[in-house]
């Protein structure tokens, strides 16, 4: 009850608006608003009134039009980008080095023996298609089980509509002349067949070999695979960062499916990332690597050298996409420029800060690495692969409880994989669901090479390096297996493109204010005023409706209700005629008390004190003077006495 009472009182307070009819309210508003037009409408003569009315309307619509444009501009979320170049102390990039060859051939020979024999025979067939010329008569029979899973075939496309498909190991290849027919080969899956065409036999054989060896090696446990790869102490012969020595122990080992063991310097996982505050080769990283070319798997990788990549700390190196090769027997100098792109996040551009809002499970998070779009795309592909083919692809990390594909357990995986890979729909799904990162760092490299070691110095250098590697006095290294790398910051080491909002909220508000002020002299408070008037008019409507309802019921009840609002009960009307003035058009005298908006009680509104009361209305000279005093305020001067 108390609450209700209070509520009613609050309503009454609110209701103490400036008028009791719409017209009064409107006139009051026009008279008292702070926007400049309305006052003129009520103050001027009828013609000018009309002009002012239209002018006000015009300016109001102008304001709204301009506001619309401004708000639209703001909501389009444009950005301006700023570009800065210079030198500053920066984190040295993480450097990943790998051998181009994933495993030592001596270690994996026993696993790939069958495959190697098969490919040798196949190559022989391709080169000499006529049977009988083959020299493999003495060798033991080939294990064709591997072959039948994914056979290499020749496709004769002389007749475009009916290409003739021939298995290489089928005997009657005599009719084909290899000069005129490019050997087009394909893999064949079980059940459904798909052909991947190559124009060159070399390409086809390499691809086929990779596919087969992938399948074989995926059965080998990871620990074993790491053991078969190159070890850090064998690969990293010397390391110097700035003036400080470093060795293979400063490198973090990571297993890369393509390149075997890779080693990352300055990954920043356990230790602080190193800073470099000076440009120039003297302050960079100097490495000497041994890639031992004689131990390469012959058909797997045709390039020899070291694969290296510069990337951000705590990011996964996608060597196959972004890595570069360093040639053996050279000193490769890499000047680094850090190219940073700082994007504004949502809503300015559709990028992600840390990948948490991307609907793809990041499989690379098991390496504790940060999100990148490459990681996302690969995880997305692997997830699709597991969903559709039931096993994971060997190149990508596995989620828990899933195995890698191999020919024994998943005989159809190669077909499934290649159809998935060529599926535009699946690729599009991945592209759509992965977002790029907002802060993107690329390392721009200026690469130059010189021969290394020089003829004059190669003796002692090889000697020391082989002594340090295997404590022998014999030179076990040669020019084909050794690489020197210098990685350092250039004179200008950063180029940052950062986005900033073209239109900020401050800009929007000040433009809105500028427009409103310019056309109508208004401010936000005017809008609130307007809102207040609307509330008042609503209240008047409520009163009218209630009174109308009650009027239908009973006249007495209506009268009592009228008495409930004290302002009505006590207000009286006084017209104060001013001599020699024209009639004020806005406060017409009406006989009925409800139409008057002002009541001036003679006893209290007289005297300067009463005139200073806030409820007094400012009226221009020449008009009628009406003073509205509510009973509460009428009593106030008395109270102050």
């Amino acid at each position: 009850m108390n609450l209700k009472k209070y509520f009613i009182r609050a309503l009454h307070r609110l209701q103490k608006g400036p008028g009791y009819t719409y017209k009064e309210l409107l006139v009051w508003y026009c008279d008292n608003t702070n926007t400049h037009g309305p006052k003129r409408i009520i103050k001027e003569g009828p013609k000018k009134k009309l002009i002012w009315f239209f002018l006000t309307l015009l300016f109001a619509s102008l304001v709204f039009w301009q506001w619309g444009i401004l708000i639209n501009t703001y909501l389009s979320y444009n950005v301006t980008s700023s570009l800065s170049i210079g030198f500053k102390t920066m984190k040295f990039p993480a450097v990943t080095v790998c051998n181009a060859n994933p495993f030592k051939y001596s270690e994996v020979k026993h696993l790939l023996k069958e495959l190697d024999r098969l490919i040798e025979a196949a190559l022989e067939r391709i080169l000499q298609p006529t049977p009988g010329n083959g020299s493999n008569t003495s060798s033991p029979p080939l294990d064709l089980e591997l072959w039948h899973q994914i056979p290499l075939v020749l496709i004769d496309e002389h007749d475009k509509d009916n290409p003739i498909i021939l298995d290489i190991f089928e005997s009657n290849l005599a009719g084909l002349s290899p000069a005129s027919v490019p050997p087009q080969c394909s893999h064949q899956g079980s059940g459904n067949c798909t052909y991947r065409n190559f124009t060159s036999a070399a390409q086809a054989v390499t691809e086929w070999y990779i596919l087969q060896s992938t399948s074989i090696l995926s059965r080998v446990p990871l620990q074993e695979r790491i053991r078969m790869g190159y070890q850090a102490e064998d690969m990293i012969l010397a390391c110097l960062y700035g003036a400080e020595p470093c060795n293979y122990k400063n490198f973090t080992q990571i297993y890369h499916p393509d390149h075997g063991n890779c080693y990352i310097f300055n990954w920043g996982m356990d230790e602080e990332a190193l800073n470099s505050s000076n440009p120039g080769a003297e302050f960079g990283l100097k490495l000497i690597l041994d890639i031992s070319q004689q131990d390469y798997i012959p058909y797997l990788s045709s390039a020899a050298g070291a694969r290296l990549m510069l990337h951000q700390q705590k990011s996964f190196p996608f060597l196959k996409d972004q890595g570069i090769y360093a040639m053996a027997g050279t000193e490769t100098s890499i000047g680094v420029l850090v190219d940073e792109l700082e994007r504004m996040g949502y809503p300015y551009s559709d990028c992600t800060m840390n990948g948490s809002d991307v609907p793809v499970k990041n499989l690379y998070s098991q390496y504790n690495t940060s999100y990148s779009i490459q990681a996302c795309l690969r995880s997305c592909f692997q997830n699709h692969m597991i969903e559709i083919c039931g096993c994971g692809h060997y190149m990508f990390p596995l989620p828990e409880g899933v195995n890698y594909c191999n020919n024994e357990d998943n005989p159809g995986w190669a077909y499934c994989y290649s159809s998935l890979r060529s599926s535009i729909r699946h690729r599009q799904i991945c592209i759509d669901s992965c977002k790029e990162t907002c802060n993107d760092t690329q390392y721009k490299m200026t690469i130059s090479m010189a021969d290394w070691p020089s003829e004059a110095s190669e003796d002692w250098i090889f000697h020391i390096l082989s002594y340090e590697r295997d404590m022998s006095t014999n030179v076990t290294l040669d020019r084909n297996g050794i690489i020197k790398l210098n990685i350092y910051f250039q004179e200008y080491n950063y180029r940052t493109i950062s986005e900033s909002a073209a239109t900020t909220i401050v800009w929007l508000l000040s433009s809105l204010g500028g427009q409103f002020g310019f056309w109508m002299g208004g401010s936000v408070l005017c809008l609130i005023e307007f809102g207040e008037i609307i509330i008042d008019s609503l209240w008047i409507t409520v009163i009218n409706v209630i009174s109308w309802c009650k009027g239908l019921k009973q006249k007495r009840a209506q009268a009592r209700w009228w008495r409930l609002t004290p302002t009505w009960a006590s207000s009286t009307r006084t017209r104060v005629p001013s001599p020699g003035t024209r009639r004020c058009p806005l406060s017409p005298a009406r006989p009925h008390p409800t139409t008057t908006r002002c009541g001036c009680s003679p006893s209290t509104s007289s005297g300067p004190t009463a005139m200073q009361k806030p409820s007094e209305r400012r009226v221009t000279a020449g008009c009628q003077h009406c003073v509205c005093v509510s009973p509460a305020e009428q009593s106030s001067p008395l109270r102050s006495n």
Partner: protein
Amino acid sequence: GPQAPTLSELMRWYCLNTNTHGCRRIVVSRGRLRRFLWILLTLSAVGLILWQCAELLLNYYSASVSVTVQFQKLPFPAVTICNINPYKYSSMKDYLSELDKETKKALETFYGFSEGKSKVRRSVGEWDSAGSDFFKQIPLLKFEDFSKTATDLRSGQKRKIEGSVFHKDSSIVNSGDSNDIIGFQLCDANNSSECALYTFSSGVNAIQEWYKLHYMNIMAQIPLETKEKLSYSADDLLLTCFFDGLSCDKRHFTRFHHPLHGNCYTFNSGENGTVLSTSTGGSEYGLQVVLYIDEADYNPFLVTSTGAKIIVHDQNEYPFIEDIGTEIETAAATSIGMHFTRSRKLSKPYSDCTETGADIPVENLYNKSYSLQICLHSCFQKAMVDSCGCAQYAQPLPAGAEYCNYKKNPNWMYCYYRLHEKFVKEQLGCQQICKDACSFKEWALTTSIAQCLPSVLPLRTDLANLMVFYKDLNERFISENPANTLVILLSNFGGQLGLWMSCSVVCVIEIVEVFFIDSLSIVMRRQWQRAKKWWNDRKRDRSGKAPQAGELERQGHDNPVCIDEDLPTFNTALRLPLPQDSPLPRTPPPNYSTLRLESAFTEQLGTRLDER
């Protein structure tokens, strides 16, 4: 004087008469709730204005970047070419034979290496165990199991190394290394107990560093003219030269002696006042040179790679070959495509860069225009001269200093290494002092390499073919411009003030007037009155005459003439009709009595009367 006698009156007057919107509403509104709401709204509007204007001010110094690409005839940059090997090994024999002998001895002791398989035979003199002081100066040491014993090279004996000596406790070294570690020890010559140990994970690096240290010592003692003679001449290095399709010769090259790379030759150095430019982009119209790299005459320990180094720079810039040079392979054609970018930053207060370097407290030792590299090197050299007493060999000499060598400064190497370590770790303050240059030119290089056919160039392992050219004649100009001007700032201020309160500068002045000047004067007046009253009271207490004075005051106040003096402002301010117009207000007594209650007003009039 103020518009109202008391603070509350002043406030009311202000609210009714000000041009800002909220205030008037506070006074005009009826009902406590409404008034409270309006006070709240007005205050929040004021708060918003302050916040937004602060935001505008803070963002005032932001720059916008414009990138313009224009096609024009570009001036060709200076191209400095050096052989990686600084001096002909054959002619350096007199100076270096001792050192080389010792180095070979070291190799033999540590690694069992002996010359003989070398393709290029060099005369190996008799090894005399005495008479060499290189190892005495800086002994090469080999550590086993990173324990505290080390094998001295010269004597072969093991000696104890104190644990405190290992300064390399830095993050980068993993202790517990099973491999042998090689390094050298540098001791303070004045205080032999202070030693620093420098270790390397590989002997290659250790021996090179060690050799370089001695080499610098030796070279520091050779005068410049001799060194220039010992190095390659233009005829030695440059075999053929074409520029812009026309042949050129050594007259187009300026010799420039680099301490670590010997004689370098700068093409288009602009020394004679003319800067060449290319008419067209493309490899045909660039610089094409064939360099002769005499690989057989290389110093085996100082440089380990073969080739040349080039650097593309502006005519006013110093070429920092050793830091940022591009290497050129022998027996190959290297083509280098250039992209020209010119950048201009705004200096203070937009960013922390320097226009000319004049405002940086580091003397520019290089006779070239300012760059960050120059500043860093000059700063280090200055620190070196200050703390070690001599100058480092790789950098130019400051006035009055000379290069370090053993004989004069036996302590310099220890000092240098300590200093260098501090420099790298940014403890020397150079990186803090030196700033970026505001405007700079940059040539982005794209290198591609092709093998030379043996039949084309018979001496192919000693030749390097180099092409430097503009890929296109587009100049990319990145310039920063102030994003905000004063006009924009002011119009934004105006917008903000207008939006929230419909306020302008005039109303800001009004606020200052009312809230500071007027209210202050009112407060001051009240204080003055109080003091006066107190004084009067005291007087009255003494004399007993004071009450009469009070009566007089009051009477004076009741006199309408006196009121009229002040009231009109009041009435006009309120825009009220003059009291004469209405019959009612002309009944003064109750009002005056209320006025009388407002003591300050009364007092004020009283004082006026008193003053009269």
